[in-house]
């Protein structure tokens, strides 16, 4: 696209506006808090506990989501059946659900007076006001992000790759594990990063379903809100926010780099004679001949 055209300038303006608006608040957090204060905030018992809890619960939730979600997404991507659109919509519903509603829904299903409350209590499992409840809430809100990405990645897979694996003696599981997953890894990693990011930031569903008990269910976002609500706690909230942002950014980058598709969120199918996104030439606006 030529920048000198009217539309080129308009698009450039829109791009600058979008990037500035999204980056500015993030930069402001780091600008507002001195590194010394940051370290000091991290030294506080409550903050450390909240961060550690966030890490533990989000890792557990993501592990569950990936372990169950990957084969589930593979099946949903491969099979065409009646009511498939309905199933896909049901999976995506938590994405557009307000977090508070998600919390209410979880209580209605798994709370002490919920549909499965009796069964869960009989099994001797405590969810409400327990760390396990946090994990459950995180799984509920984060899973759709991973599933969506994974289904799209598996759908983009060339079915002949799986057929080739089968003719070479691989059973369905080996074809899935050694061909489908590695071939779709960029899309899977992108979905994983989004889901993990969502789990780290989860607030509403956790608060309603598991409460905000320091050291048990008070994750970093809940601790930030607690700090923010207490007089003079804004700086502490700011410091914890900065750490959370840094952690989220690190996760996003690491996962994407491991996935091998730094900028691509789509699964890469084996398309000969076409460059994959990572090998495409950089195109700087106006720099093209």
């Amino acid at each position, binding site marked *: 696209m030529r920048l000198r055209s009217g539309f080129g300038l308009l698009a450039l303006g829109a791009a600058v506006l979008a990037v500035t608006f999204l980056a500015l608040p993030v930069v402001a957090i780091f600008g507002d808090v001195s590194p010394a204060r940051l370290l000091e905030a991290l030294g506080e018992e409550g903050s450390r506990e909240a961060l550690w809890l966030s890490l533990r619960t989000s890792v557990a939730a993501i592990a569950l989501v990936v372990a169950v979600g990957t084969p589930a997404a593979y099946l949903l991507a491969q099979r065409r059946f009646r009511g498939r659109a309905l199933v896909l919509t049901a999976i995506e519903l938590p994405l557009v659900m307000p977090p508070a509603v998600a919390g209410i829904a979880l209580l209605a299903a798994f709370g002490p007076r919920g549909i499965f409350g009796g069964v869960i209590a009989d099994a001797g499992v405590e969810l409400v006001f327990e760390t396990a409840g946090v994990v459950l809430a995180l799984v509920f809100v984060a899973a759709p992000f991973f599933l969506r990405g994974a289904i799209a990645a598996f759908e983009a897979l*060339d079915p*002949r*790759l799986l*057929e*080739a*694996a*089968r*003719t*070479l*003696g*691989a*059973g369905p599981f080996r074809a899935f594990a*050694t*061909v489908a997953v*590695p*071939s779709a*890894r960029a899309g899977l990693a992108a979905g994983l990063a989004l889901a993990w990011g969502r789990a780290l930031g989860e607030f509403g569903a956790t608060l309603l379903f598991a409460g905000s008990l320091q050291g048990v269910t008070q994750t970093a976002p809940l601790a930030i809100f607690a700090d923010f609500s207490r007089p003079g706690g804004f700086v502490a909230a700011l410091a914890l926010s900065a750490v959370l942002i840094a952690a989220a950014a690190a996760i996003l980058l690491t996962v994407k780099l491991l996935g091998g598709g730094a900028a691509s969120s789509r699964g*890469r*199918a*084996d398309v*000969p*004679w076409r460059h*994959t996104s990572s*090998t495409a030439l950089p195109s700087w606006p106006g720099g093209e001949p």
Partner: protein
Amino acid sequence: MSAAGLRLKACTHLRGFELNVEFEVGRGRRLALAGPSGAGKTSVLRIAAGLLRPKRGRVALGDTVWLDTAAGIDAPVEARRCGLVFQDYALFPSLSAWRNVAYGMRSRRRERRALALELLERFGAAHLADAAPASLSGGERQRVALARALAAEPSALLLDEPLSALDSATRGGALHELHALLGELDVPVLLVTHSYDEAAVLADELAVIDRGRIVQRGGAAEISTRPASAFVANFAGAAVLRGEASPERGLTLVRLAGGGELRSTDAAAGPVAVSVFPWEVSLQREHAVTGDSMLNRLPGVVSSLTPVGNRVRVALETPQPLAAEVTSRSVEALGLRPGSRVVAAWKATATRLIPLS
């Protein structure tokens, strides 16, 4: 028929027509299913490999029944172990070339790299062992795909348009490499192609398939000289002769196996397949006085006359069977009938050479 031959009989509905085929390929034999695009060729390969289940059918390798819809037998793809080389090769993008080759190996894990390198070496592709499939050219992909299929010690080799993903410059070389390779295998080979020349060079036997049915089966010469229908005549273009080429004063001289000489404007040396379209070949009476520009003349005896629309396909007993296509009017004018002695003549410029070494 040797014990481990591949027998296939299938009947199923494809887009817009019924597929109904039956054939067998012996061990070490090569059958080409040749026909236009959309004739159902690839579906036959998929049925053999187990990737497509026909409505009714039976597939067996020797005494092992892979599919018998009547008896409810349907062996899974991985149990059949057909080496299937896909049209676009379907290399695993996340694995390097040698790991692609090693994928289906049955040998012990630590021996696999050495074995893969050995196979790649045989295909002249050992230097590509660590390359990613995305970085390979079409010809290189083809070699890796063939090596991968063979590394799995397949019970049968199935090739889907093995040369169609290659550009025309690469195709000639790949054709003769494939020809040499297929000659060494002792499993049944079933290949699918829309190119009659490829089929004639690569296979011992051809089955011409049109809209789901095998309309004629036989050797390349037989099909070219005695087409069963106008469709086969149009599809089965060139007669393919074998010979030994050597350069001669700006042209190429080909000494045909069994006797006779030809000249071609194509450059080649060593064993070649010569392809001549029947409609390029004109017929003259023996001892006719000629003064034309045709360099190639082969005397022969008319063995059969097959009307094809308003033309007649004339089969000639020359050292190697040759076909000419002439008008019915010319047949009358020359008084052609089986047993007539004629001279087949065509230009060196209409003589295509396919190197086989």
